[in-house]
């Protein structure tokens, strides 16, 4: 981890030296870039920790880039924002954190002109502004990258960027001119993109780069990024933040909406904390720590790293896969899963670590739908002593298998349907909720109400659509439903992805409790924190194989990272 940090620091320092006359050493004009790097290497390495905060401390301007004063917004009876004050210095990366539903996105959407505030003022570069629509905000140099990208899939990167602001010559889009402009932007900010590639064929990280270029193309000086890392792999995340720092050093102001404390701590200059529609704290990042931020976000003392008691695993196997394989899409291509074999005992948590895209999703599909040829081409799957290789999904789940799906919105919820119907999903044929093909609505209401209470799903309303719940509450609803099965095997994929700190603590505790009650747990996560906190045994997946195995406490984050990278 430290290594990365230093490398990035070094690279950035090199870039900065080229651009900023203020810290350019004498004689460097003629020197090669590599030369400077070598010359300043030692210096930079020792500086690496502080270098990020340099621009903030160097800032001499006194006018804030953005200032929100007493911003208030009501939706029905809910105060989404209640007297929000926020000040962002120009040329800084400013973290805006809070749990899902705390009002941080609402505030940013008002700043971006998506809806007007009920009360309060928006001041941009010292000037009081009222937006009629985002077009006004864009014209004033504010840009926003939404969590779900606003890109047109089949169109090229270039066309997506100029869409709505096309340079036109004789009634035709002047792609050549756009390209010249974009090439220079890409060079200036170090954001290379293959302009001709269709968006849908590009990786998510590059799509995000295109979203950022879209803003730069429109001369945005203030960039708002809404949960930019939610969809990124760790590598893409590092890449993104390297780019953001470049942008900041080029004088852009960046507002980073997130709920990941790690990102705030590593990459921001200042941070504002939201809770329940209000600002509960604003401070320089260097003056705070994750624990303080978490407490401000949740409003109580949060246990960031729960203490997991030692497992008392039984000999009984909850799950066993032998020689699991999934052939590649065409003959001769690399297998997506090759010869994966492992077992999970009851009362044990086995964590699968790995960088996204190394076969974890395929493994999950293979064990949950072993019968389908698109999910498994060889090997056997045994759950709780039964060979389920040729069973259908329903029969498998009825054994007492709880699944927290990888992508909860896609695989776990009916977003437009009420909470109660979501609670029923997968349980609809159990004797508790149906009889002779007819649903038992009364039992469902009672059980769902009880579960919502026990698992603290907020709000406690069974009739609202699941899509209206925050990410953390959606996840709690899924956990509540799946644990209703009295599981003997829990398959938890990315259980904390996009979930806020309070809910992470909750989900972790529930998984440990299931283990202590005798369930076997297979945990698949890209978050090393999940893996290291929860797993009694850790398996590392790389390119569709299990490449390493560790017992709890016998591996450091760094070692694990190296194995995940395939070395």
């Amino acid at each position, binding site marked *: 981890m430290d290594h990365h940090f230093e490398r990035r620091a070094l690279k950035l320092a090199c870039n900065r030296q080229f651009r900023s006359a203020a810290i350019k050493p004498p004689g460097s004009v003629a020197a090669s870039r590599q030369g400077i790097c070598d010359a300043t290497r030692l210096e930079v390495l020792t500086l690496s920790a502080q270098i990020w905060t340099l621009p903030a401390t160097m800032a001499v301007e006194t006018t804030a880039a953005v200032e929100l004063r007493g911003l208030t917004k009501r939706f029905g009876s809910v105060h989404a924002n209640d007297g929000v004050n926020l000040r962002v210095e120009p040329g800084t990366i400013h973290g805006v954190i809070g749990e899902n539903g705390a009002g941080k996105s609402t505030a940013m959407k008002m700043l971006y002109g998506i809806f007007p505030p009920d009360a309060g003022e928006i001041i941009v570069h010292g000037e009081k502004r009222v937006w009629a629509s985002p077009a006004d905000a864009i014209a004033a140099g504010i840009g926003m990258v939404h969590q779900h990208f606003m890109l047109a899939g089949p169109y090229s990167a270039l066309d997506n960027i100029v869409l709505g602001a096309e340079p036109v010559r004789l009634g035709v889009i002047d792609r050549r001119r756009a390209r010249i402009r974009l090439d220079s932007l890409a060079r200036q900010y170090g954001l290379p993109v293959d302009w001709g590639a269709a968006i849908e064929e590009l990786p998510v990280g590059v799509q995000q780069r295109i979203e950022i270029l879209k803003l730069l193309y429109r001369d945005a000086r203030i960039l708002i990024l809404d949960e930019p890392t939610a969809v990124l792999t760790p590598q893409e995340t590092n890449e993104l933040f390297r780019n953001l720092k470049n942008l900041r050093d080029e004088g852009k102001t960046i507002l980073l909406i997130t709920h990941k404390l790690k990102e705030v701590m590593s990459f921001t200059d200042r941070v504002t904390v939201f809770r329940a529609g209000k600002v509960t704290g604003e401070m320089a990042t260097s003056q705070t720590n994750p624990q303080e931020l978490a407490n401000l976000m949740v409003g109580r003392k949060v246990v960031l790293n729960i203490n997991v008691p030692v497992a008392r695993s039984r000999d009984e196997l909850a799950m066993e896969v032998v020689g699991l394989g999934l052939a590649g899409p065409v003959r001769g291509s690399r297998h997506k899963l090759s010869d994966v074999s492992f077992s999970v005992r009851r009362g044990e948590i086995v964590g699968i670590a790995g960088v996204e895209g190394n076969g974890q999703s395929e493994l999950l599909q293979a064990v949950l739908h072993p019968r389908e040829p698109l999910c498994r081409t060889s090997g056997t799957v045994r759950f709780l002593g039964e060979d389920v290789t040729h069973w259908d999904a329903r029969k498998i789940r009825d054994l007492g298998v709880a699944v927290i799906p990888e992508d909860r919105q*896609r695989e776990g919820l009916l*977003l437009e349907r009420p909470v109660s*119907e979501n609670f029923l999903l997968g349980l609809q044929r159990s004797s508790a909720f149906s009889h002779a093909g*007819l649903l038992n609505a009364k039992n469902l209401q009672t059980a769902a109400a009880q579960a919502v209470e026990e698992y603290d799903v907020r709000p406690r309303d069974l009739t609202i659509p699941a899509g209206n719940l925050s990410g953390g509450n959606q996840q709690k609803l899924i956990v509540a439903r799946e644990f209703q099965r009295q599981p003997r095997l829990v398959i938890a994929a990315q259980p904390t992805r996009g979930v806020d700190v309070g809910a992470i603590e909750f989900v972790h505790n529930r998984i440990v409790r299931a283990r202590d009650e005798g369930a076997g747990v297979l945990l698949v996560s890209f978050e090393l924190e999940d893996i290291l906190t929860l797993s009694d045994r850790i398996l590392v997946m790389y390119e569709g194989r299990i490449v390493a195995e560790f017992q709890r406490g016998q591996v450091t984050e760094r070692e694990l990272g190296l194995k995940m990278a395939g070395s």
Partner: protein
Amino acid sequence: MRKLFQPVLAVAFGLILGLGVTRIAGESPWHVLQILWRSAFGSSYDFGMTLFYSTPLIFTGLAVAVPFQAGLFNIGAEGQLTLGALAAAAVGAVWPGVPWPLAPALAILAAVAAGTIWGAIPGWLRAKRGSHEVINTIMLNFVAAGLASYVTLYLLKNPDTQNPETRPVGAGYLIHQFGIFGGAPVSLALPLAILAAVLVWILLWRTVVGYEMRAVGQNESAARAAGINTGRMTIIALAVAGGLAGLVGVGEVLGNAGKFRLGFSPEYGFIGIAVALLGRNQPAGVVAAALLFGALHKGTAGLDLETEHVTRELSLVLQALIILSVSADGLWSWMKKREAP
């Protein structure tokens, strides 16, 4: 409340636009509206005809709504109802001597079975072969039309007439017509349609199969992950739809004509799409929308006779304008957004 208000407003909006068109055509909108109303509801006979036109639309509206809840688009109701009617007529023509009430029961069964099979085929193709139900249901409409022509003209041709129709069904097959509608052919098919709507409601909202069907329609991946057999639900939804469309044949063959006439349907199957859309794919909404479209159909027939400049085609214009305003969901959210701040 808003769910109810929105379609009603859309209908009013479409109607006003339509009346504007008649104004351009040179008729007083008020006069047109009066004729529309009188012709659809003016006498017990007129009202009866409105109900008669509405009945098949309830069936076809449901036949579109049920698959829609499962995330499928059934454009094949026309073919399904053609074969349903043909099957009912064939049973009645081949075994004319069967006594009441066995005879209509048999014919109804045949109609449902034929429609069900015709719906299940694209369902099966979708579930097992992955080919799109929209294409397949459209194609099967043509196959059904060809099949119906062949059977009517070569196997069951009525020798007593030049018209393309089958031999009449036996007397035991005819179902009761209600006398109170001044001779309009309102038969037991109407209560049957209401019953079908109730049963569809129970199916969708009170049964496990209905829940699973809706889950597939909402989010197929989530349904699959939860262990629901999505392919089976696809087949069931389209098969049920086919059966419902097939029931159109009951009103036509047993309750009205007493035989199968080629081209008897003024595209009930396609109007059913509009009915389902306006009825928000809810059984009660479908019944209400079917009544509206039935009334429009009957009302505009009156326009043809009683005005100089407006013809039957205006019915289609009105329907189109109503559908346009109903489907303009974007317009609604835009207007709401304008109100909100």
